[in-house]
């Protein structure tokens, strides 16, 4: 069962509900350098294995970049 999510503003499909940790692996994102927000709530690093990404979720994955 494919589910639809919005990841960094883009519509994406993933094959099934999965944990945040699995989602990061699926998109080749290194967990230690980022922060994740799910439906406007921060997902603490310690909860990546337990928080499940579900149909309709809006996720933001961010990192530090150069800035003033």
């Amino acid at each position, binding site marked *: 069962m494919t589910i639809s999510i919005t*990841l*960094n*503003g*883009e519509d994406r499909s993933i094959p099934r509900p999965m944990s945040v940790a699995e989602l990061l692996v699926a*998109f*080749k*994102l*290194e967990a230690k*350098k*980022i*922060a*994740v*927000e799910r439906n*406007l709530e*921060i997902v*603490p*690093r310690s909860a990546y294995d337990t928080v499940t990404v579900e149909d309709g979720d809006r996720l*933001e*994955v*961010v*990192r*530090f*970049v*150069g*800035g*003033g």
Partner: protein
Amino acid sequence: MTTAAAHDLLIIAGKEYSSRLIIGTGKYETYEQNAEALKASGAEIITVALRRVNLLDPDQPMLVDYIDPKDVTFLPNTAGCFTGEDAVRTLRLAREAGGWNLVKLEVLGDKTTLYPNMPETFRAAEMLIGDGFDVMVYCNDDPIAAKTLEEIGCCAIMPLGAPIGSGLGIQNPVNIRIIIENANVPVLVDAGVGTASEAAEAMELGCDGVITNTAIAEAKDPVLMASAMKHAVIAGREAYLAGRMARKMYADPSSPLGGLI
């Protein structure tokens, strides 16, 4: 060096820094160049932004691969935020990404001037301080607004010298000086410094520090300009501590008048 200068540390939110120069990390050609400029500047704090990971190219170079947050203090900003809520949301994510509480708040009013929206800045500062952040705040050069931000609990007040990225220098030294005289927390000029003499001017006014990004990143030789800024901030600080001579209306000879042949 006199004792006053030797033990002259910048203290922000209880942490001591020996450099009074904070540099930005935007607009550099590469992160390598950025890291070199950082080294030349001697800065111990850098401002950083928080942005979405590029999903199409997750392996592209990352700032943290070139500058280690263990070596320098990362100061996450809220550049590009136009409401208090956006700023708070951004800094909560930054805290999760980095794990520290010291942040730079800037809530912008419009895209042409990048001038701060002060009512939103006050609101965001209150929300952030209530949430346990140590807030260094970009603000206009209004002494009353600066005092209000201090009363809200900001740990550093950072008035603009001129519009962000303009390199126009300190446009309102009178107000900056009044802000400094009224403040019980560090005051840093944030934005507007275009070259070394302007950083020195800010320090001679009595600023506790200077933040600059574009002046270094857009110099023809950013690494050399980073070094110039380092020396300028030190020179300006020492001149401030030394206390300049009184201005006089006419000449006053440096050599003795007596004993002339």
